[in-house]
């Protein structure tokens, strides 16, 4: 399938020049092991992707195998924001507020093409990818993705969690939006990210 093999995370590399000792790396391993296997997801389901997400959580695919069976409907007790579905501009401040309410450590999964890039909804009402509002760790492609796809994304996120190091201070840096515009990435970058591509360049009929 062209997927890269996952590295063996159990082997913690020891760098003699760093300040990390055996205890710190072992503690990292323990903490990351605990975190990765009990991620509490905050489901932000707005469209059909949420149906696939429910299927993933149901008995056949069973998110409990990843320690994620406890849906956290309060953002204050959640670890992972799973945005499943398209986000209209009217919901942009809501998902931003939910993200800000989640305590560290926290991660975000953009599930499906709409949450990742806006999909076919290249129109006046839909946010072109939630990464223009909040930082995203894992993008799951698909329209909607199969439960296996979401589980693969979750396993990638677990790998990411397991490779975190405590002495990396940048990991827990909170996103700081610009107080004036409330954007956390520069406006020209957002415009460039939201440029139409593929067939959608033919959709504008403003010359009528």
């Amino acid at each position: 399938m062209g997927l890269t093999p996952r590295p063996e995370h159990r082997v913690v590399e020891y760098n003699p020049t760093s300040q990390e000792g055996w205890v710190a790396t072992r503690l990292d391993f323990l903490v990351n092991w605990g975190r990765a296997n009990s991620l509490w997801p905050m489901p932000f389901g707005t469209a059909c992707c949420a149906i696939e997400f429910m299927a993933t959580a149901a008995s056949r695919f069973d998110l409990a195998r990843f320690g994620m069976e406890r849906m956290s409907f309060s953002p204050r007790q959640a670890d992972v924001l799973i945005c499943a579905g398209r986000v209209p501009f009217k919901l942009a401040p809501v998902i931003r507020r939910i993200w800000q309410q989640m305590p560290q450590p926290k991660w975000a999964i953009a599930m499906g093409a709409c949450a990742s890039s806006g999909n076919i909804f290249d129109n006046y009402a839909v946010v072109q990818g939630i990464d223009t509002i909040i930082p995203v760790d894992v993008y799951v492609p698909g329209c909607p993705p199969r439960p296996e796809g979401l589980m693969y994304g979750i396993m990638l996120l677990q790998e990411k969690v397991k490779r975190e190091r405590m002495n990396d201070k940048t990991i827990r840096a909170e996103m700081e939006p610009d107080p004036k515009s409330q954007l956390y990435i520069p406006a020209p970058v957002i415009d460039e990210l939201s440029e139409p591509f593929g067939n959608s360049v033919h959709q504008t009929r403003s010359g009528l």
Partner: protein
Amino acid sequence: MSDAFEIQYAGSALGNAPAPVTPRNVPNRGGEPNPSAAALREQFGDAIQRVEVVWGVTNVYVRPERALDIVRWLHDDSSQRYDYLSDVTAVEFRDMDAPIEVVWHLRSLPFRRELRLKAQLPKNKPLEIASVWSIYKCADWLERECFDMFGVRFVGHPDLRRILMWEQYREGFPLRKDFPLRGRFSRAEQLRQALAANPEARYSMEELSIADAFEDLPTEMRKRLQGGERTGE
């Protein structure tokens, strides 16, 4: 406001007529028009501009200034009894000179009739038409949506403001043909304006004017509100 609730059975005005069957081989144009169209012609004369049958549904084009009277008559008259308004919407055509059509979909449950009323609003004049809210209360949100998307002002509507787009939306009316698909502003500007909204603001500016009436509230409600309690939760 209304009398005792009375159950309306579909087809109750038709006596013992057999239950309708699903029509087959419906022609695109032509066919048996709804008998209400002839009754409308008789009742309103010139106000009825054109009657046509499209896919088995009768379209009646009416003069915009008489639309409210016509809808009221269709609702009140005992031989029509259009008691259900299923939709209010508008149509704009790609021909820039063609007028915008406001469309009402009316249903008569007792007579099992479906009627589509259309009123043409020329574009060189303000897009205004009388609201049918005084007849059908369900027209409230339908007309708000039509106003939000097309900019048609419904005169007499009690609370005509945007319903789908947010209150501060400044880009225009999205379903108009001169509206670019991606909106008028850049993506960053759209996002900036969207993020500037307060997600906890449940009330529009109009509704917030109730704060002016704070002193008139009952004492115990004032006390609760001063203690930080919010309504709407």
